[in-house]
């Protein structure tokens, strides 16, 4: 009886310690796995690039879409190799945290609507009107303010239901940044952040949650990253840009918005692409950024990581365009790589080229 008790507990202890040690034993590293985390806005394209890169070179990039805020926090805490954020950090914050920032991909945020009885003829909205809708001042789709910019559409008298993000998101940051630029009241009452106190509406979790709610609720209007609107075939509204033209979200209009940006003069590549000038520019465009430490602890891993980013710049554009992201133009990524050569070091030695 006693022997049985002891022998069973001895076996259990052995098994437990055996399991424990095998879990913590380091496996011999062939190629380093590079870990990144952050924004969900560019997640589809980062995932695709990581997959393609692994197939061509065997190096594994592991990207987790946990949100811009968490990505910034983790790269600051040095728990990951690179962070991703839709909201760029200012030069001051970069210097304080010892980080280098550069843009990786450009995308657009589109307002999506679901109004039963409206043919997908394209609803026109202006910036201030969009802000008023999200402020809760325009409560019904038959409101004269909406009819004023849509003279050739017959809008049913359906209640407006605003759908926003329930979780904090870079997509919200880009969207509220635009609303602040076009509406003084929005700037005073709500502000620009990854998570705000929404005056009205329901919150969906993630771009997927917002898409789902908009599709389910008649009279809903929300905002999603363009790929989601396109993939789920949810009608987008047209927005009036700075030049006064009503444009619809597309690769061309995102590219037009990014074309005029002056990256050279931007310290730390801090650039916000909302409400850009240009005939065809889409007003709610945003770049998504990568953050890496200035001083890299592991030179081999750092070089492998930079090689991956370089591959994304040079060989990644096709995949990006398929998913409706605008790739970073060559003259900009040349500037980025120059920045790497100047600022990135490992134990004092330069890492690039």
């Amino acid at each position, binding site marked *: 009886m006693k022997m049985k008790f002891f022998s069973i507990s001895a076996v259990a202890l052995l098994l437990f310690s055996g399991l424990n040690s095998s879990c913590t034993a380091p496996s011999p590293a062939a190629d380093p796995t590079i870990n990144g985390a952050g924004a969900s806005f560019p997640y589809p394209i980062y995932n695709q690039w990581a997959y393609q890169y692994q197939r061509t070179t065997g190096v594994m990039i592991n990207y987790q879409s946990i949100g811009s805020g968490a990505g910034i926090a983790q790269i600051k805490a040095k728990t990951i190799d690179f962070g991703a954020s839709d909201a760029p950090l200012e030069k001051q914050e970069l210097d304080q945290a010892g980080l280098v920032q550069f843009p990786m991909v450009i995308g657009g945020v589109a307002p999506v609507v679901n109004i039963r009885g409206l043919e997908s003829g394209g609803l026109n909205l202006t910036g201030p009107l969009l802000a008023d809708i999200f402020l809760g001042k325009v409560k019904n789709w038959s409101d004269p303010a909406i009819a004023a910019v849509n003279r050739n559409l017959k809008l049913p008298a359906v209640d407006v239901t605003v759908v926003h993000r329930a979780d904090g998101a870079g997509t919200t940051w880009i969207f509220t940044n635009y609303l602040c630029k076009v509406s003084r009241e929005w700037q005073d009452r709500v502000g620009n952040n990854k998570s*705000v106190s929404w005056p009205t509406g*329901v919150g969906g979790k993630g771009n997927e949650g917002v898409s789902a709610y908009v599709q389910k609720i008649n009279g809903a209007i929300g905002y999603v990253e363009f790929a989601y609107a396109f993939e789920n075939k949810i009608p987008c509204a047209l927005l009036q840009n700075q030049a006064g033209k009503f444009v619809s979200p597309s690769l061309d209009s995102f590219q037009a918005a990014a074309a005029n940006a002056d990256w050279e003069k931007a310290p730390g590549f801090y650039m916000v692409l909302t409400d850009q000038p240009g005939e065809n520019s889409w007003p709610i465009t945003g770049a998504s950024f990568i953050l890496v430490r200035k001083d890299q602890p592991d030179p081999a891993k750092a070089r492998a990581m930079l090689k991956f980013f370089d591959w994304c710049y040079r060989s990644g554009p096709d995949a990006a365009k398929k998913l409706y992201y605008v790739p970073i133009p060559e003259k900009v990524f040349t500037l980025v790589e120059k920045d790497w050569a100047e600022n990135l070091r490992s134990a004092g030695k330069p890492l690039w080229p």
Partner: protein
Amino acid sequence: MKMRRKKRYRSTDVLFQYWSAFCALVIILVMAGILAELAVNSRLSLREFGFGFLVSRDWNPVTRQFGALSSIYGTLVSTAIAMLIAVPLSLVIALFLVELAPPALSKPVGFAIELLAAIPSIIFGMWGLFVLAPVMAEHVQPALKTAFGFLPLFQGPPTGIGMLTAGVILSLMILPFISAVMRDVFAMVPPVVKESAHGLGATTWEVTRKVTIRYGAQGLLGASFLGLGRAIGETMAVTFVIGNDHRISASLFAPANSIASTLANEFSEASEPLYLSALIELGLVLFIITLLIQAAARLWLRRLEKGAGVK
């Protein structure tokens, strides 16, 4: 010979006693640890907002003003709706299974109900979003609006996403737990007691009401509190359909939020220290609410115990 054998058994017993006591102590230590961790990490928010946190309706990450009232309200109201629907329904189901159903029916129905309990909560959430929400929006909510639209409870646009839908989903989730325990409680009523009531000429309904239910009142209460505990902490199912709006509305059609849904949505992106601390304080509030409900349940059960007659 005999004495040596006795000693061997005794030392194993003692060892087992200590080991099991240790395991029990670990549970208490873990709970105390969780409470301590929550308290320590919400220090920043406790200092900043103090007691006002519990009564403030604000939730503004931009101006950094946080308040738990809308989350507490949402948690309590969605749980209340769930209990209002689930408890009577469970009672009826349990009675049916024990008293009225032929064995050929009670076994598969009982099995089906237990299967309902095994469905993961996120599946409930998805089902709620894709199936229940449209049904609520197109049939149930408009019907309620036409019938009871004069009450502030049923005003506003029937979007199908909001407090009412969340309450309904929660009720479906806690139904199997409550009915399973109630069924066991009813099954434990001694047949002698029921038969003597029948022998005195009572109808089935009278026996059910005056003997079975009254006999098992404590167990029924315990079952309800079990369901309550589950409903109050339920996260994913609620997050999908409650609408995630930090506002207190009188209408059940309006979106709301619960403590669990707020934590699920906002925790990973809250990188700012005060924001994070406020969220952790929300977690602390939920922990304390759960403890209070458990304490209330125990007190109520003890009162019932004192008044109980037949044992």
